[in-house]
Structures are given as structure tokens and as C-alpha cells.
């Protein structure tokens, strides 16, 4: 996405410089993932201009960044809702009610999986194993794991997320 009036992320450069120092020499390419993560943390997604800047700053080929952005599920080039509801649908979660939870969320929010509510508040996604199988079913909301979820608990949580 490349709307014309997006603010620059170049104010993050001092942070990236400090990060560079923690890596051995010649590891500039490695900074691709941490820099993208940080930009996305601030902006909510990675914009075309961010790619242009990182190409220059890190000296990596543009295609490397383009590939990374499409390969890893956590990176996105479009914004999502304020609260990204990522529900695990893998083995243990499915065995403890994930499918019913996803249906419940879909109906309650009035969106299909992958969609965002009209007010921009919630995006509903399904994800694979989050490494929290013992407390299944698990919903990851932005960066936080919400464990041992059920319909009642998710309803309460949605109420708190403004």
C-alpha cells in the first residue's frame, strides 16, 4: 500500500543503528526481519516507502524484502483492524473447541474469516499452532495470547477491546 501522505519511519533509524551494533560485522541483511517488525509495530503495516528506505539503509536487494513480506504470515502490507483476533485452528485447539469458537466469532462480529468489521475494530483470522496447546483453545489478540477461551470469555474480552 502506498498512500501519498504516510509519515516516514526514518525516525526509527537511531534504534536500528543501536540494533546493528549488537550483530557481528557483515550481518546487515539480518536486520531485515527486526526492522520490518518494528516498522509494522509503529505503522500497523509495511508501506512501499518503508521498503524503499530499508533497501537503501540495509543495502539488500528490493526483492529480498518483497519476498520476506509475502513469505512470513506475521508481516502485512495492508492495515488490519485495531484488534487482530488470530484464532488457532490446529490439532489441540480444534479438539478443545476452536471450530465452535471461530463460528461464534464470525457470527458475533458479522464477518467471515479474513475480514474486518465495518467499524475497523476487529479483524478475524485463523492461524496455525501458537505453541499454547495446553491452554487450548487460544486466541492471539494483537501480541497477546488469550488462553482457555470459550464463547463467554471471548464475549467478555470483545467488550473490553474498544
Amino acid at each position, binding site marked *: 500500500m502506498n498512500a501519498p501522505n504516510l509519515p516516514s519511519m526514518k525516525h526509527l533509524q537511531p534504534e536500528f543503528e543501536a540494533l546493528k551494533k549488537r550483530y557481528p560485522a557483515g550481518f546487515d541483511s539480518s536486520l531485515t526481519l527486526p526492522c520490518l517488525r518494528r516498522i509494522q509495530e509503529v505503522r500497523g503495516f509495511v508501506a512501499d516507502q518503508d521498503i524503499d528506505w530499508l533497501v537503501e539503509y540495509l543495502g539488500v536487494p528490493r*526483492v529480498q524484502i518483497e519476498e520476506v513480506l509475502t513469505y512470513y504470515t506475521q508481516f502485512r502490507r495492508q492495515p488490519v483492524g485495531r484488534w487482530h483476533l488470530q484464532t488457532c485452528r490446529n490439532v489441540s485447539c480444534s479438539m478443545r473447541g476452536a471450530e465452535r469458537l471461530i463460528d461464534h466469532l464470525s457470527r458475533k462480529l458479522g464477518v467471515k474469516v479474513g475480514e474486518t468489521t465495518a467499524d475497523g475494530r476487529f479483524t478475524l483470522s485463523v492461524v496455525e499452532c501458537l505453541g499454547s496447546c495446553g491452554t487450548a483453545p487460544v486466541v492471539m489478540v494483537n501480541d497477546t495470547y488469550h488462553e482457555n477461551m470459550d464463547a463467554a470469555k471471548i464475549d467478555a474480552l470483545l467488550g473490553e477491546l474498544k
Partner: protein
Amino acid sequence: MPDFFINGQPVHAEKGQTVMQAALAAGFYIPYFCWHPHLSVAGNCRVCVVEVEGENGGENWAEIACNMPVSEGMRVLTDSERVRELRKQTLQFILLNHPVDCGICDKAGECMLQDHHYAYNGEPSISTVPKVRATKYHQLSDRIVLDNERCIVCSRCVRFTREISGSHGLAIQNRGDHSLVRAAEDGRFNADPYSDNVVDICPVGALLGKQFLHKARVWYLQATPSVCPGCARGCTVNVWHRKREWKLNHLDPKQNTEIARVTPLENPAVNGPWICNKGRDLAQVFGRARAEQPLLKGKPATLLQAVGAARGLIAEAARPVALVSSWGSNEELAAFKRALGERFACFVKADHRPAPGEVVQDELLIRADKNPNTATARELFGAAPLSFPDGTDLVLVWGEGFDFAGLPRGARVIFLGSYLAPENGHADVFVPLSIQTERAGHYTNFAGVTSSFERCFAKPPNVAHAEEFFAQLAVTAGAR
């Protein structure tokens, strides 16, 4: 330097070679898609798998040959039952989602997938699920279209832009069976002067050149070895044109004398297996409107009349100057020297110069001298820059690239050229000449390597071959 065995036969391998390299060098064929002799090993197609006999009674094992170092005494089987079964399985996987487009796909007839399928599988698909759909006509660049359904994600094209052309213009996005080859979003693949090589190395009909798209079936065409005249590198090329027995009689017979496409002719001494995009566009260079009629001051004349008039001008000239074409072949240049080298003050002319926006010179193939035979021309006629001596009264211009505004006042002009141009009509004598595709000859490149080109087409009837024509102009001063 290890020796090992392939199918029971002893084979010699150089140090550091893989089984693939040693096998091919020794004349054993191992099929492959993603491996390429000039690119890094990707090892993703899994077709080149071979079986290796276990040592000390151990079990046999199977692995890809392209990444298998040769070890002393190893016993490799390239055609065992296990290998054939594994290959067949791999081909079944490749064909799972591959669209059966052969009927409309340009690659048919020169497709590695067709060849390997018929050699090693040959059976219909065993799939019971629908094929994955993807983009079928993606504009990868101004010159290349990409059909993602046909793509087998071998990564040859991506590796080419990374390792050979250095443009880093291509990438594989996403993952799994929704992987897609895509061009970098900043357009650098479009600007890559070597982009079209990916069409050659694509093992299937995924990457196709727009110039050649749906033009002709390859089995109706023949490849004539030639040399690209685009610069002093002199890459050897194949010029493809219709076979005589497949000439079109009613549907557009012009195609019978047109270049259908140009591809590299592999040449370890000059260009390896690559050429730049300019070489691909030779049809446009040679396909320009031709001068087919000798002219005397713009009036049509016969060749005989033109020769007579030219001889007359040459005989009476006091200070004749000749501008020698750097597109002349070795044979033509020698003939010019023999016939006219004494009579004329000769200067070598750069027929073509870098055009605006054209790459001038790079580290790979492209040379700043945009002419194929400056080397021989200078060897015969020196490298002095053009300067008309006082009293120049006759200028013989051979080939393109001379600005006639620079003619000395009062000088007569003999112009020998191939293409229609306004200057043809202004010259005292104009004689049309044949072009490279209408004769055989040699060029010598900037490094002194001489390469040959062969004839593709017959020349138009009233057009002269320079080599014979020059002899007819050999007159001494004052002769009649």
C-alpha cells in the same frame, strides 16, 4: 581426482565436481529442470535423482545428482528401476497442477517437461483433484509474459537475475503451491538488458517473449548460426526463420523472409549461453524498409548503369575519400581493401553509436562500440578519425551512420547502403547492398575472436553483394 562408476562404467571426475557435472561430461544423461551449468545449484526439482550402491553391504540410497559430490569409488546408477520410479513420481508431482496447454503453448517442441514426461512417465495424470489456478498472462515486463500455472518454480529465472545479470529483478513470492514468480516492484527487471535470457532457460512455457508469442511453431523453423552485429562483443546467435519446406504460400508470405526470433548460440569463447536484449531485436534491425533500387541522383537506374556511373566518378576524382563500414564482414572489408584501398583515402566509420537510454558498456557482454567488425576494419584501414583533406571531391560512403551535412562542399557522393533513406536520393550514385542475413561471412570481435555467420535468406534481385561489387569499382585514376 576421483574415479567412480556410473552404471558400471568407470568415469573420471575433476576434483570438486558433482555427480551431475561428471556424468554429463562423460556423456551420461541425467534429466533435470532446475540445474543449469552456469547457475548455482538449487536442488529443488528433484528430477535428477540417482541411486548409489551402499558400501560394505549397506543399503543403497537415492539422492539428487546435482548436489552430490563425487567420492572415490562410488557406484552410481542413473537408470535403475528405483531411479525410474522416483523420476516418474516426481514428474507426476510436476504435472499435478501444470496445465495441459501444449496446444497453445509456444514452448511445445522445445519443452523440457514434454521431453522428460514422454521419456520417463508417459502416462496420463493420476490426480483426482482440480488443478490449482493462478495468473495465466502476467506482464512480467514490457518484453516477457509469465504464465504462473505453467511455472514449475524451478527458480532458474530468479537465480539468473541474481547471479548473471545482477539485476535482482525477479523473486518468488508467497510459499507452498501458491508460490509465484514476480518482478521486483521498482521495475528493475524491465530495465535489465539481459532479461530475455530467462525465456531461454525457463524449462517450460511459463516465461515467453512477447515478440515471438504465438508467431510460429518451432518445428516449422530452422536455426541459422549468425553473429549479432549490435556491438563489438559479437555474440554468436541462432537466427530462426521458416524452413523452406514449411514456407507459407498464402498466409502472409512475408514471413518466409523474416526473422522469427533470435536466441543465443552457446559460445564459451565469447558470450557463453547468453545474449543481451538488443540481439533479440535483430528482426527490427534487419526488417527495416530496404533499398532495392539503384539510383542516379534519385532516378532509378539499372545496376549496370550505376556501376558505370560510379566507375566514371572514381576515375576522374582527384581526392577520393572512402568511409568504410564497421559492419562489413572480414571478406567484404578485404575485398574493399583489394579493390579500393589504394585509390581512396580510407577512414573507418562507426555505423552505429549508443542510442539514448541504451546501455553503453557493462561488465557482462555489452560493449560501447556498437559495431560488429571495427577490429578488422581498423586492422585494414587504421583508426584515424575522419577528416576530409582539402580538395576532397569524391566521397564514397559505405554503410549507415554518416551525417551527410558534414560532406565537403562540391564533393560528389557514391552511397552504398541497404535501407531506404532520404540520402539515397541525394547521392550521385546509390547502390543497394545485401544485409548480413543474406550472405555468409565472418566478424572479428574486440578481443580478436572471429565468428562466422551463415546465410538465412536470398537477397532481393537488384541488390548487390558488396564483396563482388567492390571489385567492379576498381579503376585507376584517369582510366575510362
